[in-house]
């Protein structure tokens, strides 16, 4: 990129908004998936929609690829810069523009931190439902790109359920509005297409969110089982009884050990732990909690605890939320996966994972959003031992293939990004992917917006999928995640 263009970009964002020195650019060379690294040519930190538009117009004119970035907590390399491209960081656009309680809407800029939305509306008994566990640092713009989930999406839905409208800068710099504060705006549901498109269709500069009234009460139950099979059967029992809990989470023994070592959540030592959360009107929740208790007992739960106070609940969740980072306590390195299976395939897939793990001679810890079949197997290895890293990558890929074979998905909430694009052609046939590309062609005919993500391309030299290491914010104790 020549100096003339850099000057032009600097002129758009004022001095503070342009980063081009190599030492400062290092912060932006990866996101939460740290094994992929690409140095961007420059990072722009616009402060307004107008500045985003001006930057994108320059990129369009000069054919410079760009990657939008929120807090950089993504786990699939979605915010990885592209060669010879720029990064557009939205962190300075962090205002909550409007809170409209009578209509249960909030209008925010993309750099607003997820948890800050709830913090702002809690006094009036409202909350913002999507809760990725990086929610104390991840941005709404990033959530929109990834269609982030979280533990409570079982009942409340994903980011896409809660985004009613978007102001978007298209890859040619034009400004458009999808959806709105009212429902069913005339025309195609482009907000639905945009959410989860991982930054490949443009940059959201304003987001209209649906906010939700807090339930009358929340109850969290912890049940200890012999193995994931019994715990899984209890989950099926709860669903078959016609209940829709706010969350159902499962951890296996290795994950429990790691969580205990890290945060002392005082979990029972058992083969599998189930965490069931119900919310709603008090009388309804208490009645259903009795059922959940019975179902867990009848599936062999050895110990059942119900957290009654907010403090007890927080402790129960703390161990679960710390599970990924806690792996560092029991293994030098690990890969986080994000496969999804139909819930009923759990026993079969689990026994396959055990078999694959034994064959590879590597341990796999399992943390699940059990209610919706979203698995987070953590493949543990030691980079210092020759061959283990490669074996871990192969094992991790094999687990995703198990998910596909079971009729599931390669990603439930972390996104495809850079990391899993090579798996896309195992999940989708060529006409499926080409059709998605045609839709992309309508938004971004020149393929400038995050051009190298989601869709499979020939494997590049030196590409190393998978390994997880903590985000700097996580290491510093400022964040935790599922």
């Amino acid at each position, binding site marked *: 990129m020549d100096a003339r263009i850099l000057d032009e970009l600097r002129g758009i964002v004022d001095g503070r908004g342009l980063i081009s020195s190599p030492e400062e650019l290092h912060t932006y060379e990866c996101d939460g998936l740290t094994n992929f690294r690409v140095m961007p040519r420059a990072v722009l930190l616009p402060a307004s929609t107008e500045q985003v538009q001006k930057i994108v117009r320059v990129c369009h004119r000069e054919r410079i690829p760009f990657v939008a970035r929120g807090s950089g907590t993504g786990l699939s390399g979605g915010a990885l810069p592209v060669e010879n491209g720029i990064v557009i960081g939205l962190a300075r656009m962090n205002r909550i523009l409007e809170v409209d309680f*009578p209509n*249960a809407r909030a209008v925010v800029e993309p750099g607003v931190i997820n948890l800050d939305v709830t913090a702002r509306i809690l006094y009036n008994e409202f909350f913002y439902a999507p809760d990725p566990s990086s929610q104390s640092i991840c941005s709404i713009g990033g959530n929109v790109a*990834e269609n982030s*989930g979280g533990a409570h999406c079982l009942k409340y839905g994903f980011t896409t359920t809660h985004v009613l409208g978007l102001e978007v800068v*298209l890859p040619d710099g034009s400004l*458009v509005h999808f959806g709105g*504060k009212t*429902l*069913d*705006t*005339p*025309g*195609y*549901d*482009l907000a*639905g*297409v945009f*959410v989860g*498109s991982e930054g490949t269709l443009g940059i959201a500069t304003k987001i209209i969110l649906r906010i939700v*009234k*807090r*339930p*009358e009460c929340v109850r969290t139950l912890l049940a200890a089982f012999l193995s994931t099979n019994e715990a899984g059967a209890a989950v*099926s029992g709860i*669903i078959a009884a*016609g*209940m*829709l809990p706010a969350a159902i989470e499962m951890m296996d023994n290795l994950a429990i050990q790691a969580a205990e070592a890290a945060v002392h959540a005082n979990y029972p030592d058992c083969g599998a732990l189930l965490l069931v959360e119900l919310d*709603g*009107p*008090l*009388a*309804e929740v*208490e*009645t*259903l909690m009795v059922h959940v208790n019975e179902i867990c007992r009848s599936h062999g739960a050895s110990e059942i605890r119900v957290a009654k106070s907010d403090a007890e609940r927080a402790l129960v969740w703390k161990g679960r939320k710390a599970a990924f980072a806690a792996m560092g306590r029991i293994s030098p390195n690990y890969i986080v996966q994000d496969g*999804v299976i*139909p*819930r*009923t395939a759990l026993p079969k897939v689990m026994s396959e994972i055990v078999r694959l793990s034994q064959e590879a001679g590597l341990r796999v810890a399992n943390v699940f959003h059990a209610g*919706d*079949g*979203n698995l987070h197997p953590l493949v543990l290895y030691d980079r210092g031992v020759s061959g283990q890293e490669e074996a871990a990558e192969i094992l991790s890929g094999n687990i995703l293939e198990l998910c596909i074979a079971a009729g599931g*998905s390669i*990603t439930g909430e*972390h996104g*495809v990004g850079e990391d*899993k694009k090579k798996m896309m052609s195992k999940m989708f*046939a060529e006409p*499926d992917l*080409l*059709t*998605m590309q*045609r*839709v*992309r*062609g*309508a*938004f971004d005919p020149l393929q400038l917006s995050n051009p190298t993500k*989601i869709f499979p391309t020939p494997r590049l030299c030196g590409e190393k999928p998978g390994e997880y290491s903590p985000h700097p914010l996580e290491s510093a104790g400022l964040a935790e995640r599922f």
Partner: protein
Amino acid sequence: MDAATQSQSTTLHSSFRYKLISFLGPDHVHAAAPADAVAGIQPKVIVSPGNERELAEVLRLSNEAGLAVIPRGGATKLGWGNPPSRADLVLSTARLNEITEHAWADLTVSIEAGCTLQKMQETLAQHGQRLALDPLWPEKATVGGVLSANDSGALRLRFGALRDLIIGVTLALPDGTLASSGGKVVKNVAGYDLPKLATGAFGTLGVISRAVFRLHPLPHLSRSFSVATATAEETRRFIHAVQNSKLAHTALQARFEGGAAPEVDILFEGTEAGLDAQEAHLRELTQTAGVTKASPDIWNARQSLWSSLKPESTALAKFTVLPAEIEKSMETIAKSARARHLEWKGVVQATGIGWLRLEGGAKDLHVSLQELREQFERGTGSLLVLHRPAAMPSIDTWGDAGDVLPLMKAVKQQLDPKNTLNPGRFVGGI
């Protein structure tokens, strides 16, 4: 059209028809009857493929021949949308009516587009489940049609719209491509969310051949109540109080009829103990206003707006407003109706989506609909004209799509470049 062109088009049509018959057999290719007209436009032939490969092939052949294709399910909402600019072939999904898989333990169903909602719900109910959606005319309406028209009723407040329930789709594109996206699991972010793109696209991008939905359990018990409110302002206050309470109601709607006192209906689902507690809570909230137990039939109020419809003097519209402006929008409607001497009736859900029936002179209906659309659009809402008397001056079905129309046209261009599917029926001439 002069005689020469007409004869040429008939010849083209005959040879094409022969091609279809040799492909599908004579039983599945029929000449169109006057009753098959689409918003007043007469198509030539009705084609009923037997599976999605055949469907995609018929579509490809038609596209190649430059013919306009109108996809059709149960034809319950075929009259919605602008009249097509061209209509050659009606592509019926009637024979694609299988429930491919009800994975009841996983709470999902895979289903062909031509299956009726009622048949699907009956099958799901055998395992105590449902698609949590209450569309119009479920005994005739098909999965593909309900999706394409994005129809939803009172359950939307709790369970969301079709966009929130669909998790996978297979689309036949005009070039013959069969493309699937989404999948069979509820939580899935791999690739673009094309199930949402197909939902509400009015069959202008592709023909839905299959869909996968997430399901919900049938409720243990349900109870409905009606609350008589004296004025629109009282209606607003009551709806706001309910929405702002800790009640976990499943549906909430207001019914308005001319100058009569509006009624508000509320639905609870759950266990006996839970319902008792919610009922007590509701009675506390309403205080003076009378709460009466209601029959579940009140949830048909939306559909009953179409009852004994006089096509030549009735207009029907769907409108969207901000949830807090329901009462204001009702006053707007009442005022416009009064000025034009129109009878009116409306049902509005607490989501801000409403349905309106207006009766009167064709010219007055036209003026009133235009006026209402203008006012709703000014408040970020919209008004869709679903039915109008033939004698009424023409009015666009959809209204303003905003600054995103060029992008919508680009999406259309990518998937249906020859404008084969439902030409001219959708927003902005798409």
